[in-house]
C-alpha cells in the first residue's frame, strides 16, 4: 500500500510540470488526490476513446458494405452483443475501477483543520488551531493533510483547486468536509465553481504549499503581533483606517477593528491578490482598490472611499505593514 502511495506521489510529481504554467489545471496534479483523478481520466479516455473509435469504425463499415449485406452475426445478435454485452462488460469493469479510486479518496487523518467560509464574493479563512485569520488564500504544509470545514455565509459556493483535488460545495445549511494534501511546493489557483451571483467569475484564491519548516515559519510570523506604527505617516495611516470607516467592515488583529462584513485585513500586507484574485496586491492597485473598488470589481460590497492623496498614501503604507 505504502509503495503504491509513493509511486502515485512520483507520478503526481511527473505530471505536475510547472505549476506556474498551469496554475489551475486538473491535468497537472500536485497531490495524490488530483493524481488519482487525473489517472482515472487518462484510463477512461483510453477505454472510452477506443469504444468511440470502434463505434465509428462499425458505422463506417455499415455505410461502405455492399448493398444488401447484413450486420455481422445477423441484425439482432449484433445489437445484443455490441449494444448490450460489450458495453455492460466494459461499464461494470470501469465501475469497479472507479469505486476503487473512490475508496482511495476517503478523508485521511488530518494534521489540522482550516475553516473556509464562502461570501459573495470572497473567502474567509480561519486556522483555529493556529489562531490565524486571513482571506482569499490558504497556506498549507507540503505532505500533510489539511482538513477543510467548508461553509457558505450566504449562497451556495464551491471550493475548487484542480491541481490539488476535486471540488466541494459550500452550503448555507451545514458544513461540508474536505481536505487538501499538496505533495509539491507551489502556488495553486482555486476558484468558486458554483454560480453565486454577479461576481462569481472574480471569486478566486491561492493555495500556497510550503515545505513544512517554511510553513512553521509562516505560522510563527503570522502570530507575531504587529509593530506599533514606526513613523508619523504610518500613524496617520492607522488613524485614517478608523476615521474613514474601514473598520466598519474589516477586522485587523490587535486593534479595535473587529468587524466581519469584509475580509480580515490582519495580514493584508502579505496577501498575493486583492478582491479575491481580481488584481495583484501592488501599492498602486491597493490604492486604486480603496478609492474605486467598484471599478475593479463592480457589485462588491465595498463603497468608494474619498481620501486626500496624502491620507490614501499613508493608509496604503500602513496596510502594507500588516504582515
Amino acid at each position, binding site marked *: 500500500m505504502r509503495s503504491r502511495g509513493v509511486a502515485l506521489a512520483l507520478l503526481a510529481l511527473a505530471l505536475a510540470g510547472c505549476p506556474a504554467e498551469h496554475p489551475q489545471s486538473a491535468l497537472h496534479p500536485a497531490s495524490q488526490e488530483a493524481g488519482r483523478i487525473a489517472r482515472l481520466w487518462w484510463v477512461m479516455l483510453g477505454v472510452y476513446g477506443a469504444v468511440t473509435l470502434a463505434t465509428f469504425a462499425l458505422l463506417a463499415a455499415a455505410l461502405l458494405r455492399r*448493398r444488401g*449485406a447484413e450486420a455481422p452475426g445477423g441484425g439482432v445478435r449484433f445489437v445484443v452483443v455490441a449494444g448490450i454485452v460489450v458495453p455492460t462488460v466494459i461499464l461494470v469493469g470501469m465501475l469497479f475501477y472507479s469505486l476503487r479510486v473512490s475508496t482511495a479518496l476517503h478523508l485521511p487523518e488530518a494534521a489540522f483543520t482550516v475553516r473556509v467560509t464562502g461570501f459573495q464574493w470572497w473567502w474567509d479563512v480561519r486556522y483555529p488551531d493556529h489562531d490565524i485569520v486571513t482571506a482569499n488564500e490558504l497556506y498549507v504544509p507540503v505532505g500533510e493533510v489539511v482538513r477543510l470545514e467548508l461553509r457558505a455565509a450566504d449562497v451556495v459556493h464551491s471550493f475548487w483547486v484542480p491541481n490539488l483535488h476535486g471540488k466541494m460545495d459550500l452550503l448555507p445549511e451545514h458544513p461540508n468536509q474536505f481536505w487538501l494534501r499538496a505533495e509539491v511546493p507551489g502556488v495553486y489557483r482555486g476558484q468558486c465553481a458554483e*454560480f453565486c451571483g454577479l461576481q462569481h467569475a472574480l471569486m478566486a484564491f491561492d493555495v500556497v504549499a510550503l515545505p513544512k519548516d517554511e510553513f512553521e515559519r509562516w505560522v510563527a510570523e503570522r502570530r507575531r503581533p504587529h509593530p506599533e506604527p514606526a513613523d508619523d505617516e504610518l500613524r496617520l495611516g492607522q488613524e485614517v483606517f478608523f476615521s474613514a470607516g474601514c473598520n466598519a467592515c474589516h477586522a485587523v488583529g490587535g486593534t479595535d477593528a473587529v468587524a466581519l462584513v469584509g475580509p480580515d485585513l490582519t495580514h493584508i500586507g502579505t496577501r498575493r491578490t486583492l478582491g479575491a484574485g481580481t488584481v495583484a496586491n501592488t501599492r498602486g492597485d491597493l490604492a486604486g482598490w480603496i478609492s474605486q473598488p467598484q471599478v475593479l470589481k463592480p457589485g462588491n460590497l465595498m463603497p468608494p472611499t474619498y481620501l486626500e492623496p496624502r491620507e490614501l498614501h499613508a493608509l496604503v503604507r500602513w496596510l502594507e505593514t500588516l504582515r
Partner: protein
Amino acid sequence: MSVGTAAPPAQAGFERTWQGHPGLRGWLMEVNNQPLGKRFMVTAIIFFLLGGVLALLMRLQLAVSDNDLLGPQVFNQLFTMHGSTMMYLFAVPFLEGLALYLLPLQLGSRDVAFPRLTAFSYWTYLFGGVLFYASFLVGVVPDAGWFAYTPLSGPRYAGLGVDFWLLGLSLVEVAGITAGVEILVTILKLRAPGMTLGRMPLFVWTMLVTGGMIIFAFTVLLTATILLELDRAAGMAFFDPERGGNSLLWQHLFWFFGHPEVYIAFLPATGIVSAVVAAFARRPVVAHVLVVVAIVMTGFLSFGLWVHHMFATGLPELAMHFFGAASLMIAVASGIQVFAWIATLWGARPDYRTPFLYLLGFFLIFVVGGMTGVMVAVVPFDLQVHDTYFVVAHFHYVLIGGVVFPVFAGLAFWLPKVTGRLLDERAGAASFWLSFVGFNLTFFPMHIMGFLGMPRRVYTYPATLGLDAHNLVATAGAFMIALGTAVFIGAFLHSLRRGRPAGEDPWQADTLEWSVSSPPPIFAFRRPPVARGRHPLWERGRPAAAVEAEHQRVTAALDAAPTTWRATLSTDPLTGAPQGVQWLPGPAMSPFLVALGLLIAAIGVVANLYILDLAGVVLAVGALARWLQPDEALLERLRQDPAPRAAGLPVFTTGAASTGWWGALCLVVILGTMFGALLYAYFYLSLFSDAWPQGGLERPGWGLAGPATGALLLAGAGLWGSRRAFHGGRRAAFVGLLGGSAAGAAAAAVLVLVELVRLPFGPGVNAYASAHFTLSGLAILALAMGTAVAAATTHRLERRLERRDAFDTLQLQVTTMLHGFALVAALATLVVLHTSPVLL
C-alpha cells in the same frame, strides 16, 4: 386517398366541418392539430434563434481573456436566458409541436384526443415565453441561471427578474404538461384500427414514454417553482436556511425534473433518428423490440439519476455511487439504440441527402457526448470536472448532437410533408457542413478548457489560465453554427416558393403520414386508414388477415363521415381494435381565454397587483367552466347521427375505452404528483430539522381536523353510494348522496381553512409553517375542485337519470375519479400534518 376536385355534397359537408373560422377570431379559436403543431414549431424555432443570438453575445464576451465588452450583469442575464430558452422554450415545445402535428398522421387519426387542450397548451406556451422575454423590456432580466439555485434565487439575493422567470416558466410548464397529456391519450386511444402496441412506429413509442415522463417531471418542477415563488412573493421559508428551510431541497426537486428533462428532449430525437434511419435504409429498424425496451428503460431510469448533478454537495457516498451506477445502466439503453441503427444501415447504401447528413452528424457528435456522459457519472471524476467547461462541452455534445441535429434531420425529412415542397439539396448540405464543423470548433476545445481550470458561468477569465486560443476558436465556431442555421432557414424559405413539389412520399418511407397528400388535408384522412403491420406503406401488397375485413367495414362507414361534426376513430389502447366514434370539438375561444386568464394572473404576481390576480383567476375559471359545460343540443345531435351506427360503433364510451376517462386519470396523476412533491418537501425539511414543528411551534391539534376527517369519510361514503344509486336509477338517493358528498367536501375544506386562520403563527415564521400552510392550502384547493365537479354532476345527472346513457355514466366516472381523489388527498394530508409532528 388524394383530395378529389369535385366533391359530392356529403364530402363537401365533411370538408366544411373541418375548416377553421376565418380571420383573427378564427386564428384565436383554432383547435386543429396541424395549424397548432406548426405554430408550436415556428414559435419554438423563433425562441431557438433568440437563444442562439444570446449565445453569440456570450461567445463575444468570452472571445478573449479579461474582456469587458458586456460586463458581469449582462453576461449573467445572457447565460440564464440562453439556458432557459433552449431547455424550456425550444427543445421540449418544439418536440411537442412536432408530435402534435405528426402523431395523428402517423397513427391514422384525424386530430389529437383533446383539440381544445392543444390550443390551450399553445397559448400558455406562447404567453409564458413572451413573459420571459418581457423582462428585457422592463430591464429586469432573470440572472440566477436556468437552474435558479436557492438561496441565490430567493428573495434576499435576486430581484424581479427571477419572478419573471418563475411565472413565465410556470406557464410554460402548464403548457408542457397539458401537451404531454394530449400526446399520451392520443397515442393510447386514437390509433388506426389494427395498430397494436407492437405495430406502433418507434417515433410514437418515444413520444408515448416522453408524454408519461413530462407528466411527472414537469409537475414536480411546477411544484418547485410555485414553492420558490411562495418564498419570494408570500414570505414563506421553504428554501431559506435562516428560517429552517433548505437550499438543497430545491436542488433535489429541480434535478428530479432536470435530469428526466434531458431525456424528454433526447427520446423524441431518437424517435426521429429511427424514422429517418428506416426511411434511408429502406428497411425496418433492426431489433425493433429491443429498441422499444431501451426507450421504456430510458424513461424509467432517467428518474433515478438526478443526484448525479449533485455529487459535489456532500451527500452520503453510498447514495452517490448508487446514482452513478444507475447512470451507467442508461448508457446501455442508449447503446442498444445506437447499434440497432448501425445494424439497420449495414449495407443499406443510403442516399446522402440532407436528412441523412444531419443524421450522421448526430451519430458522430452524440457518441462522443455519450462517452463523456459516462465519465461524468463517475463520482471522483465528476468532482473535478463538475461545473466546468468540460461539462459545458459534454451537454452541448448531447443536446446539440443528440437533439438539435436530429431535429434538423427531422425538419429536412418532414418539412416536405408539411409544406409540400422539397428543400434544396445543395443548401441543405452546406448548412450541415457549416453546422457540423462549427459545432466541433465551438465545443471540442471546451473539454480542454474545463481541465485547464475554466468554471462554468464566468463572464471573464484571467490570461494566466492560458485559455485565450481555445476561447477564440470556440467563438469563431459559434458564428459558423449561426451561419449554418441561417443557410438552413434560407433554404426553407426558398423552398416555400421555389421548392420542387414533394409528392406524397418523397423518401419511400413506411409510416402512414406518407400516404396522404403533402401538405395533408386538415382532416388528415378522409377515410381512416387501417394498419396491417409495423410498416403500413411497405406492406400494402400483403394479403389481408380476417380481422381486417371488419376494420375495412368500419373505416368505409366513416369515409368522409360524419359530415356535420368532427370525429375520428377511437381504438383499444392495447390491440387497436375500434371502440367508438370519437367526437372532436371545432373552433372555440375558451382555451385562449383560460390561457389569457392565467397570463393576467401571472402578471399580477410579478407586478404585485393582486387585483389582476383576481381578474385573471375569474376569467380563467369562467372560461374553463364554459369549456367543460356539456352542450346538450350537440349531445342530442351526436346520438341521432347515422355515421356511428353505420360503423357499428358507439359515439359515447365509458371507462378505459373513452378518451375522457384517460384524461381524468392523467389529471389525477398530475395532482397526485403535486401532492407527492409537496409531501417530499415536508418530510425532507423535517428530516433536516432538530425539532418538528420547528421553532417550538405548537403541534396542530385534532379539534377541527377531527371533524374535517369525519366529513371526508362521510363524503367518501356518499360518493360510493351515489354510484349505486345512479346505476339503480334511484333519483332522490343519487341527488342526496352525491350532493351530500359535495357538501361534505366543502365542509371539510372550510374546517381546514378555519384551522389555518386560527393558528397562532403565519406561514412565514419558518419552513415547517410554510409546508403546513401550503399542504393545507393544496388540500383546500383539491376539495374545492372536488366540490365543484360533484355539485355540477349532481345538477346535470339529476335531470338525466331516467334517460341516462354512456355519456352520463362517463361523467359520473370522471366525477368519481376527481372528487374521490380530492377526498383521498385531503384525508392523507390531514393525517400527515397531524400525526407526523407526533411521530417524528
